[in-house]
């Protein structure tokens, strides 16, 4: 509790005790025993002023500043009204409970805000800068590129950099949601905001603080609440009309029925006061943005940055999800997926291919060598006279015989008959002394768990999954089939991807949103064009963080379905709060107009509802997804 909150608490206690005494006196008839009505008023004014003086002062000041319809003013009018109708005890009670509610509300808001802030507590406070062999603690903002910083065990990495000395485990969970620590060796890049494990690291700084990952992420999270969801804007607009509407209704209620019905003025004045107490839209104005903030907080807890509450709203309406293939659904790394050996051939086809390709720097050659080196007892054969034939492959001499390793064109050029391989991937044929031995097939591998992730997205409510790729038909269809995607478009040029996504947006229903998932490297225009652009594996990639609306820090596809669930939960909580707050207020307004609600019920409808709505909006943050 802050000192201001404590002060209010003491005032509540003092006037609360006085209120209880007065309340008891009223029920035992003690209050009437006081010499006159004026005496009773004076006695009740003491606790009233103790608890309510600041409300009245604020109201007067705000009127002078031209802000009439604020809650202080309304509380003042409502309680003055109660005094006028001789409900002295009630006036004290309303003010007292209003303050109790306000205190509880401010405490709950503070607590919730703190728990969200703690979650995003990734900002490093200092850096251990090395100056002439001496270590000095400085502000990370003062560290220049190329400086050396020392990171001790348990400390936060202050700036992005490259490890030059030391080994350690790095806890990246605050950024990626990944709980398994990452092993770090010299020459590895490290990212600010992570927490160093058990080893001390010496790091050469590669980015200034303002450009570092942690500063970028913090900026993004802090600005997230400025992009408002439709519901939020609706509430803001609603609040603008709600208060004047209820206040005017109260005025009408106080004047019209007594004149028409020739009824007692006092009764209708009291009912009008009930209206005024309920007229503040606080419950909605606080709990709705808070619900969204809780959702954004919950997403960042699993390593997903959502750049605004509007995107959280869109995610909950996501109907079609379009994926880029390479680097998103697949690893984007070419690996040997199959080795074919012709019947009757005894040679190790992969060994021959690897031995010959060892001299080439082509990416395909590299993946062949990598695959072979994984085998047990891997040993390169002795080859000589290696000659690379551009566009064909490699020719070399192995134990007096001529070996050819290359594509189908090379085989044809040498008149070697071999069966052309059908299916996805790149094929490297191997022949010895003009006789076909076999082939090595290299293809991009599908990410682990991708099929399961797609299935989970469907369960979470996505109705259509689409893949776009510039790759060949066979490769595209193979991936689409394995992942059970609904639609696939292949052999696309980069520009075609934008127009495909546009097509989906145009044909979709107005409330069915289209998301595009890419790795952010060369699909920034598509990310920007889609209703929701989701960038994957973007830790440290500025371009992706900039272009996308939702950033998944690591490359785990499963997080998409989790963030959809978070968005749906958030939306349902926000809607619950709106319905609950408006429902209770509407009900009390109705009962109040009919004379069936007390001032107490009105106070509950105001502050009680606000507190419940705030507590409800924090549920997203603590739920597991």
């Amino acid at each position, binding site marked *: 509790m802050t000192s*201001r909150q404590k002060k209010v608490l003491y005032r509540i206690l003092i006037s609360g005790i006085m209120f209880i005494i007065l309340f008891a006196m009223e029920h035992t008839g003690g209050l009437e025993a006081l010499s006159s009505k004026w005496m009773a008023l004076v006695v009740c004014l003491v606790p009233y002023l103790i608890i309510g003086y600041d409300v009245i002062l*604020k109201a007067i*000041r705000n009127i002078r*500043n031209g*802000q009439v319809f604020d809650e202080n003013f309304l509380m003042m009018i409502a309680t003055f009204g109660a005094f006028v109708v001789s409900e002295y005890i009630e006036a004290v009670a309303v003010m007292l409970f209003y303050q109790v509610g306000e205190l509880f509300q*401010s405490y709950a*808001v*503070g607590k919730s*805000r703190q728990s*969200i*802030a703690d979650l995003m507590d990734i900002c490093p406070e200092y850096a251990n800068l090395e100056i002439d062999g001496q270590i000095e603690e400085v502000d990370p903002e003062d560290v220049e590129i190329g400086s050396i910083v020392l990171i001790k065990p348990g400390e936060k990495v202050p700036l992005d950099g490259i490890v030059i000395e030391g080994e350690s485990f790095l806890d990246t969970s605050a950024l990626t949601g990944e709980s398994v620590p990452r092993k770090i060796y010299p020459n590895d890049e490290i990212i600010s905001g992570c927490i160093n494990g058990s080893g001390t690291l010496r790091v050469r700084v590669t980015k200034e603080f303002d450009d570092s990952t942690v500063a970028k992420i913090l900026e993004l999270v*802090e*600005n997230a*609440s*400025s992009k408002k969801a439709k519901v939020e804007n609706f509430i*803001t607009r609603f*609040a603008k009309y709600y208060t004047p509407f209820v206040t005017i209704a109260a005025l009408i209620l106080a004047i019209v029925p007594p004149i028409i019905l020739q009824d007692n003025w006092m009764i209708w004045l009291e009912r009008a006061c009930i209206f005024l107490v309920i007229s503040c*839209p*606080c419950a909605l*104005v*606080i709990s709705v*943005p*808070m619900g969204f*903030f809780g959702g954004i907080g919950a997403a960042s807890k699993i390593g997903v940055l959502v750049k605004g509450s509007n995107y959280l709203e869109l995610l909950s309406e996501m109907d079609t999800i379009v994926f880029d293939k390479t680097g998103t659904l697949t690893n984007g790394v070419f690996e040997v997926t199959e080795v074919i050996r012709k019947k009757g051939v005894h040679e190790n086809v992969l060994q021959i291919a690897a031995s010959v390709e060892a001299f080439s720097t082509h990416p395909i050659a590299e993946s062949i060598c990598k695959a072979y080196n994984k085998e047990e007892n891997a040993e390169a054969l002795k080859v000589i006279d290696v000659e690379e034939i551009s566009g064909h492959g490699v020719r070399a001499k192995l134990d007096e015989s001529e070996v050819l390793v290359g594509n189908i064109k090379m085989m044809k050029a040498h008149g070697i008959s071999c069966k052309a391989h059908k299916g996805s991937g790149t094929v490297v044929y191997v022949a010895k002394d003009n006789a076909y031995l076999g082939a090595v097939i290299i293809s991009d591998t599908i990410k682990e768990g991708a099929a399961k992730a797609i299935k989970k997205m469907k369960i979470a409510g996505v109705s259509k999954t689409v893949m776009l790729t510039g790759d060949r038909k066979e490769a595209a269809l193979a991936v689409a089939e394995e992942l059970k995607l609904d639609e696939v478009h292949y052999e696309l040029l980069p520009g075609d991807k934008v127009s495909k996504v546009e097509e989906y947006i145009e044909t979709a229903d107005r409330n069915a949103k289209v998301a595009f998932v890419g790795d952010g490297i060369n699909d920034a225009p598509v990310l920007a064009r889609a209703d929701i652009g989701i960038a994957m594996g973007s830790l440290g990639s500025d371009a992706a963080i900039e272009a996308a609306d939702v950033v998944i820090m690591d490359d785990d596809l499963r997080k998409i379905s989790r963030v959809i669930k978070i968005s749906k939960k958030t939306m349902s909580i926000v809607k619950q709060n709106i319905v609950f707050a408006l429902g209770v207020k509407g009900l009390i307004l109705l009962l109040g107009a009919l004379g069936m609600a007390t001032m107490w019920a009105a106070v509950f409808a105001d502050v009680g509802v606000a507190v419940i709505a705030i507590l409800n909006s924090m549920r997203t943050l603590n739920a597991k997804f």
Partner: protein
Amino acid sequence: MKKKFKVENLDCAHCAAKMEDAIKKIPGVEDAVMNFMTQKLTLEIADDANMDEIVDKAQECVTKVSIVCEIIR
């Protein structure tokens, strides 16, 4: 020019929105965001405007809504 300020004792979302509206109307202010959740004010001002003067005026706007609320420079 863009600058961020911490705001103390900002304890109602309703008020934050009122302050934001008022600050946006100060001449020289291009954009202002009063973030209730992070308790921060982000000011974007024209290049030829004086930041100190604008913060003074922003504080006036803030005080009008809440007397205890303070922009920390």
